[in-house]
């Protein structure tokens, strides 16, 4: 399957993009990850969305807060190594009773090749929990849409902080030594 084809049963990125659309999530900020490549492209190619490339993940937390103040919905895309960068900034949506929605692609757990990814990958869930962010984990493609839908309702209808962690079983583990791209 090429990057431009969409299979509604297996293409989780297209499902997430569609959920962003139906739920008026228009401002998408990210520090990229290979696992987010297709979702980022779908958002960048959508004229109704604005994508914001960040230099570090906590910028996206503050950006989402500003967007909410102005009446728009934002989502933050990052990989698990970025979770730790967000810790202090997560006090902002928490203290201000703002929604926060993050979609985190996991590294450093299932079949990881790079040991430097393991410390943050294995502590992402605990760090988010300690910062008052509810964590939903997804390990299979069939769960993505329903979990994202629940996370979006929780974030914006109940004004909570929520992160959806996409497991490495779902996005696949990279191995440069084996020649993976």
């Amino acid at each position, binding site marked *: 399957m090429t990057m431009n084809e969409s299979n509604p049963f297996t293409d989780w990125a297209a499902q997430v993009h569609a959920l962003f659309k139906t739920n008026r999530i228009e*401002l998408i900020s990210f520090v990229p990850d290979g696992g987010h490549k297709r979702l980022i492209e779908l958002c960048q190619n959508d004229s109704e969305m*604005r994508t*914001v*490339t*960040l*230099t*570090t993940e*906590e*910028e*996206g*937390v*503050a*950006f*989402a*807060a*500003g*967007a*909410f*103040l*102005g*009446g*728009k*919905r*934002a989502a933050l895309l990052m990989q698990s190594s970025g979770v730790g960068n967000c810790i*202090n*900034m997560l*006090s*902002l949506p928490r*203290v*201000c*009773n*703002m*929604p926060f929605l993050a979609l985190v692609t996991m590294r450093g757990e299932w079949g990881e090749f790079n040991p430097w990814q393991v410390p943050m990958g294995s502590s992402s869930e605990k760090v988010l929990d300690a910062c008052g962010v509810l964590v939903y984990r997804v390990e299979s493609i069939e769960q993505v849409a329903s979990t994202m839908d629940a996370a979006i309702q929780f*974030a*914006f*209808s*109940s*004004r909570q902080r929520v992160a959806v962690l996409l497991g490495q079983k779902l996005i696949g583990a990279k191995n440069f030594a084996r020649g993976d791209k």
Partner: protein
Amino acid sequence: MNRLNRRDALREILRERGDLIVVTGLGSPAYDLASIGNAPLDFPLWGAMGGAAMVGLGLALAQPQHRVLVLTGDGEMLMGIGSLATIAAQRPRNLRIVVLDNERFGETGQQRTHTAMGTDLEIVARGCGIENTRTIRNAAELAALRQDIHSLDDVLCAVVKISPEELPRVLPPRDGAYLTHRLREALLGTERALEG
């Protein structure tokens, strides 16, 4: 070297501010704003150090018809220095960033910041890609800055060199949920402000 008084400078910048939204970084800029007043379009941060400019970017993109002023200190801007690159890449025409630069961490004992040790935040901002940058050292430059805050159709970053004196603290409200609702209600109306 000529240094402006921070509250005199801010009073001039915010004179007849109209519907300008003002986000401040934590610490002295928040107290400076509170020394002038306490308005629904004020959003003073009490934490989230390094995040003021990005809160401003979010507001600017969500409210393109409104001008948004981020008013912060040199220490806070240095912590969020990468956000100058993020903002330059977005080029929000309604966002203004004003750094009140006293070259000190004012909240923690007046320790010197990097701007006292060679860092020039105006050059940093320009190097990040923000074309409209300036350093303000006198009343005439301040008056021109005030004009441009209201009339320029492009993102703007100004560094205002201020004296490092410690002034009496005037505290803005620190209930974040209140500040959030107050600003959203002013911008969106009560009904939308209560939604997600």
